[in-house]
């Protein structure tokens, strides 16, 4: 249960980073420069990893 809560918390953080930055770019508040896009991609990669780890089919 605790591991699942931690994973959910981390996933929430990573998706917040992604959403904040994408909306910020759309609204002209965040420059879509390479370092920012790379950080965004990194957050999404980590989120993908957490989703894969949380899939019961991948726990065996």
């Amino acid at each position: 249960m605790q591991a699942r809560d931690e994973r959910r918390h981390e996933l929430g953080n990573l998706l917040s980073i992604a959403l904040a930055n994408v909306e910020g770019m759309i609204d002209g508040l965040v420059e879509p420069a390479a370092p920012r896009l790379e950080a965004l991609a990194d957050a999404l990669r980590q989120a993908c990893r957490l989703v894969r780890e949380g899939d019961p089919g991948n726990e065996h």
Partner: protein
Amino acid sequence: MERPRVLIVEDEPRVSDVVGAYLEREGMSVQTCRGVAEALGALARFAPAILVLDVTLPDGSGLDVLRAASLPGSHVPTILLTGRVEEADRVVGLELGADDYVTKPFSPREFVARVRALLRRTSEEAARLSKEKPRQTRIGELEIDYTFHEIKMNGRPTSLTATEFKIIALLAQNPGEVFTRSHLLDRLGDDGEIYERTLDRHVNNLRKKIERDPRNPEYVVTVYGVGYKMRRP
């Protein structure tokens, strides 16, 4: 007009930088902190109008900051950022004094709307409080405490009946305003204990207790043909 100050306590700069930029675009002054210790210092120095607080911080719980921000007399309106969606966490946070919460992941546009709504509620509440009647009035040597139902003349407590207190409180909260007898009776309540014919007697008894010369009153003054008024401070 001074820009509303918002303190953001969030350990993830890739989130706080962006939401901070949104709030600054809305005309707010923003400071960000990444942990509990830094936030406790900033609360005192920055004196924010709104606190945005991540519950999970690297050096402790954001709820410790919330406790410090919710002390009586120094409450800072607070929005919690939390990844914990369980109802219990929400209840605990709100019972500790948080005013709203946003669960992660969240949209910065929605977040900004929440901050603006809380600012609006806070300023409306402040305006309402400033319009409320004062808890105490001083007119000359007469002091009235509405909370404790106490009257002092020249610093000495004076005992009034409930009806006498109602009359003087109403007049003193509206100094200079003339109340007709029927208006006074309306405002004093409809408990049926006060009638127009007995109102004058209550006023006379009140004058005996607070006036130097009840026949030439300085405080509760008769406006002939109309009613009564309290002299201005």
